[in-house]
């Protein structure tokens, strides 16, 4: 099967946290801006759970603009006139990088035979890409949400690979509430009769209903209550009265259904299982625990020489400010140069993707400084 995305095949098998090894790993990526002669102007942008490498270019499936076009481009805060910006699809995903929908060595899709991966495994894949591109130390690694987890993980595990680490609306560990919401999504997928233990690729009948429910539940966590109330309130959808039935009477129901069904056209249900699992397993302090002791997050960053910047949003209840502060305190304890600001924005967790001019100023100032 030919891959329609731009990819690199890693020359070496990728060792995984599970103890398994993934061979023949493909990493799909896009780049923007020109790499300078000494390869010192590269910025790696890491995408979130359902994101992909189409950072600042049209998405080939949806035809929509890149997911961070407001941030990345000529003259924008991540300025492609200055920087060579790289964005890669994480392993486990479904936009060209090796994931559960990819073919295993036996020629059939992996499905649930794909090994369970972690955020650190995703980062190993990204570092493999950087090696392949001949890039030693990044000018910066940048990410929001799960992308921020990758940025922090790269800083902790590959401390010499990035001079600056910008982690937005993220956390160093998944909380019980984070895990709980993901479990709802996974159970929705696995309860769909079309899921068939993940072996659904042959006949094109995928567990879309389950995946849509998973997306709907998750989407609520990306928005603030204030934002939902302002956008939808209790307004009805294209009708003047309640129907006393179970159609999407309310605008908010219609919106969520639209989000759910749109998502199934571009995302693989098994990828959703694997990536949410990776996020749930994420706990940088635990990764760096010595002996049987509970890990200290500061120890994870002890070897880092990078400058850090963390940004949270006051309306984000998925990865609230306290989680960023937790990381900041650990970085203070490790003696790392760190900036942190909680920005005010009404959009909840999704604020990092939306129009927040203060974020633009912080991103530009940190990257150019």
């Amino acid at each position: 099967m030919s891959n329609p995305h731009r990819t690199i095949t890693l020359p070496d098998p990728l060792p995984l946290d599970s103890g398994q090894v993934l061979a023949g790993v493909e990493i799909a990526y896009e780049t923007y801006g020109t790499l300078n002669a000494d390869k010192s102007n590269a910025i790696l942008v890491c995408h979130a759970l359902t994101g992909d490498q189409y950072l600042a270019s049209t998405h080939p499936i949806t035809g929509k603009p890149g997911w961070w076009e407001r941030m990345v481009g000529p003259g924008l805060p991540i300025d492609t006139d200055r920087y060579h910006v790289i964005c890669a699809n994480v392993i486990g995903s479904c936009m060209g990088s090796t994931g559960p929908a990819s073919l295993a060595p036996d020629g059939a899709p992996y499905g649930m035979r794909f090994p369970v991966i972690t955020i650190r495994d995703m980062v190993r894949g990204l570092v493999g890409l950087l090696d392949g591109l001949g890039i030693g130390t990044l000018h910066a690694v940048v990410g929001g949400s799960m992308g921020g987890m990758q940025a922090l993980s790269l800083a902790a595990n590959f401390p010499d690979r990035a001079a600056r680490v910008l982690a937005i609306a993220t956390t160093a560990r998944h909380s019980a509430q984070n895990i709980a919401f993901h479990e709802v999504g996974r159970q929705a997928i696995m309860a769909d009769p079309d899921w068939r233990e993940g072996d659904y690729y042959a006949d094109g009948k995928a567990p879309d209903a389950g995946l849509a429910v998973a997306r709907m539940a998750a989407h609520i966590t990306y928005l603030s209550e204030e934002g939902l109330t302002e956008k939808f309130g209790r307004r009805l959808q294209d009708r003047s009265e309640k129907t006393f039935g179970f159609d999407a009477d309310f605008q908010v129901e219609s919106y969520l259904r639209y989000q759910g069904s749109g998502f199934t056209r571009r995302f693989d249900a098994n990828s959703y299982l694997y990536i949410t699992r990776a996020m749930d397993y994420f706990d940088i302090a635990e990764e760096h625990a010595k002996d049987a002791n509970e890990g200290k997050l500061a120890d994870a960053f002890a070897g880092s020489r990078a400058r850090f910047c963390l940004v949270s949003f006051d309306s984000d209840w998925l990865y609230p400010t306290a989680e960023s502060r937790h990381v900041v305190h650990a970085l203070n304890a490790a003696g790392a140069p760190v900036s942190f600001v909680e920005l005010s924005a009404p959009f909840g967790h999704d604020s990092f993707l939306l129009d927040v001019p203060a974020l633009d100023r912080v991103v530009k100032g940190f990257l150019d400084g």
Partner: protein
Amino acid sequence: MAELRPDLRTILARIEPGSRALDVGCGDGVLMAALRDRSQVDARGIEIDGACVERCVAQGLSVVQGDADRDLAFYPDGAFDYAILSQTLQTAARPDHMLAELLRVGRRAFVSFPNFAYWRMRWALVSRGRMPVTRHLPVSWYETANIHHVTVKDFEELAASLGIAIENRWFFTREREISGSGANWRAEYALFEVSRAG
């Protein structure tokens, strides 16, 4: 480069190039930027006001939004050569704890504060019988962040009782440095360089 306030100019001149400094309550980062640009100091800041932090980060400064009363605790002992607390001591929940913390994370500290025993203050209190509102303390008593008014003498006594050594002292009135004689009357604000005694 914008003109620095005289106390900040003094601090800038006293801090050794290439050293590490923590500016507690760094505001817009004007001192941090000067330390970085003129003295290659590894300067870090704490500032409670988000808009100020944003302006600092936009200048490439390493500033953490936080509350010094709470967040200094997360810095390890001796992490800095200098801790700086300019015009902020009087806003601390416990200035005595704050001083101790400054000299835990820093080898030395610079502390400046408005002198409540400045003669204009005394005169305003005596003549009008009201809490003074002056150029240097411009906010009414009920909305001021300055919850612990302090005088030069008070500070010197506190330092002695905490076993803190006063290395240097400077006094300022109307943005000019003045001599130390009668400072508790004459100084609008004071700057002390302190260290752990012993």
